[in-house]
């Protein structure tokens, strides 16, 4: 249930730690630090579970280092009664076993190319009130900050914090900027910000302390669609600078 009862399984070059999150979920952790190789395992397991959920699985939640799989103990036990009745184990052990079986299969499975999602951003001006501050902080011009921000590839590690909010990895260190001293009470949906070594887009209006550098017309949270978000874990995001005129015409056009 904690470090002492969890175990590491050999899994390619990376080991996976399997442990319970409460009595309805099992957590599969692939490493201790955020890195691409660890995330590759998170992505592979997520892709597999998306296509081949096991009986009794409710849903899965990927994060930086781990995938958490929620299960219905009753449905899992029901399956054992039918398939391997002689083996009497608890629901957690069964869920962990299902996950281990999947991990073994993953090694052989081929890789998939990530989806590339382009997000058009109108930088600076009223949409990016903190762009001058970010530029000054790094002794750069505003245009240099825009060029650096829009030339990197960002990996969507996970979605959380707010519906459709993507935790992006890959912000160039040269524009990493601390949060604002005083958070703003409301930041409009679509605002692009920087906080420390993270960058992201606010999917819905929320309070926040990020440095605001621009805004996109792209809706990131789409509650009437399935999936309800523009971005998904594992995507690669590229920001493309657009003019105010293009922003306005995109805003006016039905997407």
């Amino acid at each position, binding site marked *: *249930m*904690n470090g002492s009862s969890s175990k590491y399984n050999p899994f390619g070059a990376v080991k996976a730690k399997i442990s319970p*999150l409460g*009595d309805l979920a099992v957590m599969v952790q692939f490493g201790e630090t955020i890195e691409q190789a660890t995330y590759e395992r998170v992505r592979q397991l997520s892709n597999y579970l998306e296509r081949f959920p096991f009986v009794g699985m409710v849903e899965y939640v990927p994060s930086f280092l781990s995938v958490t799989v929620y299960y219905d103990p009753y449905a899992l036990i029901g399956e054992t009664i039918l398939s391997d009745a002689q083996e009497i184990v*608890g629901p957690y052990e069964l869920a962990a076993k299902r996950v281990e079986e999947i991990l073994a299969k993953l090694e052989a499975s081929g890789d998939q190319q990530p989806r590339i999602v382009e997000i058009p951003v109108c930088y600076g001006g009223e949409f990016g009130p903190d762009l001058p501050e970010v530029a000054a902080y790094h002794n750069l011009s505003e245009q240099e900050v825009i060029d650096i921000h829009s030339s990197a590839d960002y990996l969507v590690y996970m979605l*959380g914090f*707010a*519906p459709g909010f993507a935790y992006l990895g890959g912000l160039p260190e040269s524009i990493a900027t601390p949060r604002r001293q005083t958070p703003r009470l409301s930041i409009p949906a679509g605002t692009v910000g920087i906080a420390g070594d993270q960058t992201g887009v606010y999917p819905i209006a929320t309070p926040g302390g990020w440095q605001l550098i621009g805004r996109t017309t792209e809706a990131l*949270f789409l509650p009437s669609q399935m999936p309800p*978000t523009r971005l998904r874990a594992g995507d690669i995001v590229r920001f493309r600078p657009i003019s105010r005129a293009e922003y306005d015409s995109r805003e006016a056009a039905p997407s």
Partner: protein
Amino acid sequence: MNLVILKPGLLTTVQDLGRYGVQKYGVIVGGAMDAFALRIANLLVGNGENDAGLEITMLGPEIYFPEAALIAIGGGDLSPVLNGRQVPAWRTVYVPEGSRLQFGRMKLGCRAYLAVAGGLDVPVRMNSRSTYLRAGIGGHEGRVLQAGDRLPIGEPSSIGRHLADLLAGEARGDEPAIGRWSVSPELLPAYAANPTLQAIAGQEQDLFDNEAISRFYQEDYSVRTESDRMGYRLSGGELRLATKRELISSAVTFGTVQVPPDGQPIVLMADRQTTGGYPRIAQVASVDLPLLAQTPLGGRIRFRAVSLEEAQKQYLVREKGIRVLRSGLEQLQTNRNGKVRTNGER
């Protein structure tokens, strides 16, 4: 068919069992705080367990039924009264047309659940009818109910219709008719203002010093007034980390007890975020989540350590009990005269 909200109460929302399958997109589960109570109330009116009902918080609403309906109320005891007569909890109740349902004093627990045969037929958004207040989505127009709201009621199931037929003949004037069948008392959670909750060791229990762990399981923690559907903020003995470590966000769930730097634990509830980065000292056993959800503001909580195996065993026992109740109610339909008594324990 509709029901009409005459007075909204403090915080009345449409809820089902929550929004599953979209946590990976950062969308919260939400749903009934006391999911058990909604499931049982639904079963008593022949609904599917996941049908939408009303979650009624502390100060109840006043509701008008323009047409006859079949209802059940479960969860906390908020003194429900129909046309001036007390409504028993955990029973099937036939409501004559033109009835008025009111609530009174909060006697036990703090959330009541109203199920109506056919369920509340609000639009399904992202796999669920539950109200996601922060995003203004789901339920009735994505918000808490207001006076004048009319909520559409869906088509009752064949069991719901049969139970209504059994009781319709017994209703006299504006007096409700109560089903003779009832729920086994052993199946019902022991709601209390100051409950003891079983808890499993959390993912980061090892990061806390021994004093913090023994304190967590020995002292009372009271529910602060800033608590809401997202989390219960507790106050009590400070929980210190033995080793300070920056954690990397990962999944959290209903009942996760996380400890922010001030050392005062927060238990995550129905509207919890999908992921979190505070150390998790414990996880409330799923069978005890109804007790937690019914603990009123100011209530005192005590935690008791339980093994994962024991927590899952209790979970399976409860699920089995719910299925027995369900099949008992289904059998009422096949018994023509409806004279069958079931206590859910057949």
